[in-house]
């Protein structure tokens, strides 16, 4: 089996770290040696954040994916998804994206312009070998809290079948990681994401 190289792209505060931890644990459950490289700290405060999730048979891969070797981009924010796909992707890169913008400070202050959301997704479509758009924030709202969009996105990715990860494994891992209301919320968001994509396939 080929190594798996996945990047999760988003904005600080969107739940990248939890998503990467769950996907890495699920890859390990499928028999991979895994490695995750991420940035948090200052970058949590509204900056661009990126998690590199890698799985390989045999020796554990390094924490960062070389540009041009990314198989899948899981994008929590469209502008960041475009940035990362263009920078790290290649012709075979497949993309799952939440189309809901989070506006950068420079856009608020009027120094920069946010691209037209529809054109943004179209551009992303020209780069991606396959593109799946998931209204994950809406699915998370349905699950009970908009902040659970990260788990809706994890569900959507697992639903595409692009990653060697079983839905049951993720449900179990969520049970080990969370409890009570947060567990219920995250499992529901995961299920809604999973179903939303599976219905299309």
């Amino acid at each position, binding site marked *: 089996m080929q190594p798996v190289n996945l990047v999760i792209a988003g904005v600080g505060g969107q739940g990248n770290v939890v998503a990467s931890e769950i996907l*890495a644990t699920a890859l390990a459950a499928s028999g991979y040696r895994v490695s995750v490289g991420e940035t*948090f*700290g200052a970058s949590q405060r*509204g900056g661009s954040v990126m998690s590199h999730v890698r799985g390989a048979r045999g020796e554990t891969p*390094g924490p960062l994916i*070389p540009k041009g070797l990314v198989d899948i981009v899981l994008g929590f924010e469209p502008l960041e998804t475009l940035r990362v796909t263009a920078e790290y992707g290649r*012709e075979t890169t497949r993309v799952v994206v939440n189309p809901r913008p989070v506006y950068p400070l420079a856009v608020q202050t009027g120094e*920069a312009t946010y691209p037209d959301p529809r054109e943004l997704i179209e551009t992303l479509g020209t780069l991606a070998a396959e593109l799946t758009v998931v209204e994950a924030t809406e699915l998370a709202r349905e699950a009970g809290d908009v902040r659970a969009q990260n788990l809706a996105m994890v569900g959507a990715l697992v639903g595409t079948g692009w990653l060697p990860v079983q839905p049951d494994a993720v449900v179990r891992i969520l049970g080990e990681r969370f409890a009570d209301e947060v567990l219920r919320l995250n499992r529901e968001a995961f299920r809604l994401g999973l179903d939303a994509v599976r219905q299309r396939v």
Partner: protein
Amino acid sequence: MSLHALSTDAPGEVVILSGNEAIARGGLEAGLGYAAAYPGSPSSEVLGSLAPLARDGGFYAEWSTNEKVAIEGAAAASFAGVRAMTVMKADGLNVALDPLTSLAYSGTKGGLVVVVCDDPGAHSSTKEEDTRYLARACHLPLLEPATVEEAKEMTRWAFDLSEAVGLPVFLRSVTRIAHARGSVVLGALRPPPRTARYDLKDRFITLSVFHQVLHQRIAQARARFEQAPFNRCEGPADASRLVIASGPSFTYAREAVRLLGAGDEVRVLKLGTTWPLPEDLLGAQLRGARQVLFLEEIEPFLETEVKSYWAQHAAALGPMTFLGKASGHVAGSGDPGVGELTPEIALRAVGALAGREVALRSEAFARKVEQVKLGELAPRALAFCPGCPHRASFWAIKAALELDGRQGVVLGDIGCYTLGAMQTGYFTLKTVHAMGSGVGLASGFGKLDLLGFTQPVVAVIGDSTFYHAVVPALVNARYNDSPVLVVVLDNATTAMTGHQPHPGTGRHAMGDLAPALPIEAIARGLGLPTEVQDPLQVDETVESVYRLLRTDGAKLLILRSPCVLLPSVKRLRRAAVDTTRCIGEACGCGRFCNRAFSCPALVWDRALERARVDEVLCSGCGVCIDLCPREAIAFQELA
């Protein structure tokens, strides 16, 4: 955090740990008895993962007031024969350096491991420091893990080394270890023995006569490094092209060799014991090499050390070319010693060494990427979180200084509030240095009246910073009667590094309650006039700052409102724009809430041409409600 994976006693089991958790686990497998740290990214999660396990594990864990006290506490444990660990970021090492250089002379007893996490690329730091230079300056041995798994093994080994040579041992981690995750094979847990005791025959004295002893101890460490399991060479033994790599750069080097298909031409020497260098091993590996490439973070440390070794043995080793950051062959994002060493940099450098190239993506894809015009996409600057009380505080300070009109100067330091120097904090901070430096600087500015200085000075600090480094500067300002206003942005936690407790919170690292040491009690004890104000009440805050600016002597204003990311802070309501009252560009406010106040939750609805509150982001602080000139924003209760 995977606390279960961290504390499970199942030798041989493979679990996924972060680098920081792996270091903690290494301690647990080594019989750690005492752990003390001051939080600092990317190091914070080492103690953060040890603390919840301490009580059941029979060891002590502490968030110390600063790194100096942390290392002194750990040294006490060592003197009592207990294995101890202290953890800090590179900046923290500067604070701990005075006792640490002394400990090198006095020696230690129980294993003492000093974990320092450097931050190449300064992802969550204000500067890039390379701890290896300070290990050399301290004369203390240093280990550099290349992977998360090795971080655990090295930590365990470091305790044995420390006891064998009687010195503290550095473990130098970096962001791509600390904040990486990886598969780790667990070893057996080892509970600490309950035999702590100071043997009165022992003496730990810092005196210059021990300088020579220190050199002997370093020679012993060097001898052990020759046999350490962390140095190894991959590739054909007779290859004249040699890569010497340390830290995560080794994994990039290995992948680069594979991607380039250069495995038959290039050898990779992985060094895990980087100061003092294992010279016999190095000499053996250099023999036959003609071109040597160095992949390391941050500065060209190995490059310089190896070149120095070669100069001493040039006759035996023959001519050699050295390629690295110092020679200009391996650059970071600009100059040598700047930025992270990425897989791309490693690929280019190893490619140049091997005379090979590899394209990872097709030309057709590259052409499509060109059309995206990456450089023109809106950049994403750091910003205070929606509802962050610091935004309100900086707004009020700036407004009060404008009212005052004497060109007041605001001085800062390190924390979330460093962003006060950027757009999100209205460029209010004019200086940023070490923790507490703003108060020391303010104390100095305040005494320049003799030299014609007439501007008021304000020092902005955080609550955790107050305890860490501010008290001596406050004593200085108060005793020398410097007319400074110190503003404490008290958000009830150490926010930037992930909500660690501090002496004002009434909570210890191990979770038990403790009588808090309120900032105002300490300040009043020093005889400083002290006021407390809620910064989310903007008008009142502006009034307080303005009034205090116009009083004599040193004084303290506490702007107290909890960090909105604290789990205890519940969202009960949010702001909403009344689109019948907001009249958009016609208002004349120039999109004030959006462009001037710039909370990330205040967005501009292009279709409606009105301000809109992003309900995902809004935390309901209500500051924009007070600031909107048309009173067009109101609270909306959440169900």
